[in-house]
């Protein structure tokens, strides 16, 4: 039980923190369902260097005991290392085109995920998580994260007043959120849910991204801004605490008892090229 943090949103979605759930109870409810969990991650250009560590750590901590499909989207299939996976878990390379700028690459993820769900993964998985590749798992990530529509609270903004959330503030953008509105600042590095729901919201986000493109505007934090706009009007059914989306450069505050998934320290300038 946690009394130091908010554990339920005003629309009655649970906020998942260590101490709020019992893994055994959840496993006994979910394991018999024989679910397959999908993971999408984009490894474009120099980002392929993160794949090995991402997968190795996922093998140790992500959805142990469940069927898992990793979908690695890359423009460079030959540079993807061969990682040994446990039984019931497989790894699929999805070749995609590389866009000229890192912002464009980032924003095209919505379209790529949506397309891939329609063509392939809707038949292969029940739940899908879309994760950033330049991250590592340090602790268990289990069925407590499963839900219809799942978003994660950005580690930089969980203890900060709403007025300081870096929402897109220009009204000409389709991702615009006016002052005084907003529930949380969700991170673009982690989102997911039932494959059908992920299909729906990646489509909507891609549409709003295209609208902005047509108007010659790019949202402050790319698809993260569009994601936040979407989750404001279509609230997630489950919210993950920053334990599930941490930034190792930040000092660990008392509310964070456990870091499960965190950024790899890197030279942004060098790797975004």
């Amino acid at each position: 039980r946690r009394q130091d943090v908010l554990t339920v949103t005003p629309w009655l979605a649970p906020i998942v923190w260590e101490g709020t759930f019992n893994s055994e109870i959840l496993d006994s409810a979910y394991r018999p369902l024989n679910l397959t969990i999908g993971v999408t991650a984009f490894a474009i250009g120099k980002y392929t260097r993160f794949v090995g560590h991402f997968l190795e750590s996922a093998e140790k901590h992500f959805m142990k005991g469940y069927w898992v499909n990793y979908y690695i989207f890359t423009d460079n299939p030959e540079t993807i290392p061969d990682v040994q996976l446990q039984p019931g878990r497989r790894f699929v390379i999805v070749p995609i085109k590389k866009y000229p700028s890192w912002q464009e690459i980032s924003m095209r993820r919505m379209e790529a995920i949506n397309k891939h769900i329609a063509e392939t993964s809707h038949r292969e998985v029940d739940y899908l998580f879309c994760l950033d590749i330049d991250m590592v798992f340090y602790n268990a990530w289990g069925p407590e994260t499963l839900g219809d529509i799942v978003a994660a609270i950005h580690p930089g903004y969980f203890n900060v007043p709403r007025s300081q959330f870096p929402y897109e503030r220009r009204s000409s953008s389709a991702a615009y959120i006016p002052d005084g509105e907003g529930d949380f600042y969700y991170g673009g590095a982690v989102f997911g849910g039932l494959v059908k729901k992920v299909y729906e919201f990646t489509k909507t986000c891609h549409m709003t991204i295209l609208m902005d493109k047509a108007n010659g505007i790019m949202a402050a934090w790319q698809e993260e801004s569009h994601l936040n706009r979407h989750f404001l009007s279509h609230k997630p059914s489950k919210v993950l605490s920053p334990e599930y989306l941490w930034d190792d450069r930040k000092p660990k505050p008392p509310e964070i008892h456990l870091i499960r998934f965190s950024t790899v320290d890197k030279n942004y300038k060098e790797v975004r090229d």
Partner: protein
Amino acid sequence: RQDVLVLTPWLAPIVWEGTFNRDILNAQYMQKNLVTGVVTFAVKKYWFFIEGFMSAANKYFLAGHQVNFYLFTDNPEQISHLQMAPENHLFVITVQNHSQWQDISVSRMDIISRYIRSQFQYEVDYLYSIAIDVQLFEHIGVEIIDTLVGTISSWQYTARRESKSYETHTESQAAIPKGEGDFYYTASFYGGSVTEVYKLTRACFKGVVEDRENDIEARWHDESYLNKYLLYHKPTRLLSPEYYWDEEL
């Protein structure tokens, strides 16, 4: 709310005043164009409660949203002209009179499942079974709407000496092994999606039938079977004892 448990260990929210914003929930509910049904039984002397229940329910239960009330009674003549809110509908269904009230109690499960199959599934998305003698004093809104919902019984919550408990007779289908059990749920208010309520009522009635064949009767009747079911099929949302406070406490 920091004074109470607001989340179960399987991450189902426990609904207390102060944990939710009804405006947000109303907006979500209306977006989906949902219809909710209420099933209630007024058999034998319980006809007395009909007017009070329907008048309060029209005023306080999901006010502003369409509710279909399915009233099962053996006494349809006793129903005086009931004023329904414009968005609500009342269906009066006549049932047989059983000799023992325990029989009425457990046959409710059977009746509900049969009617879901033949009728309710086509008319509502969510269905709640509410005892006719429940007193409604405050608004009960869409915060109750979820896939499988149980209400924590106030009896267990204050841990009175004479508290109601799970069926201990180990041969009963309602038996819960010692030491197990999350909460004690009341049979006076439970519900969920029409599919889940169908599964629940079918399973409970099956338990009743099996026990009868072995000459066993669960101590708290349909409530015992309900608790067994919800132990092994965890509710997706729990209503706190604010939603059903037994006056006898």
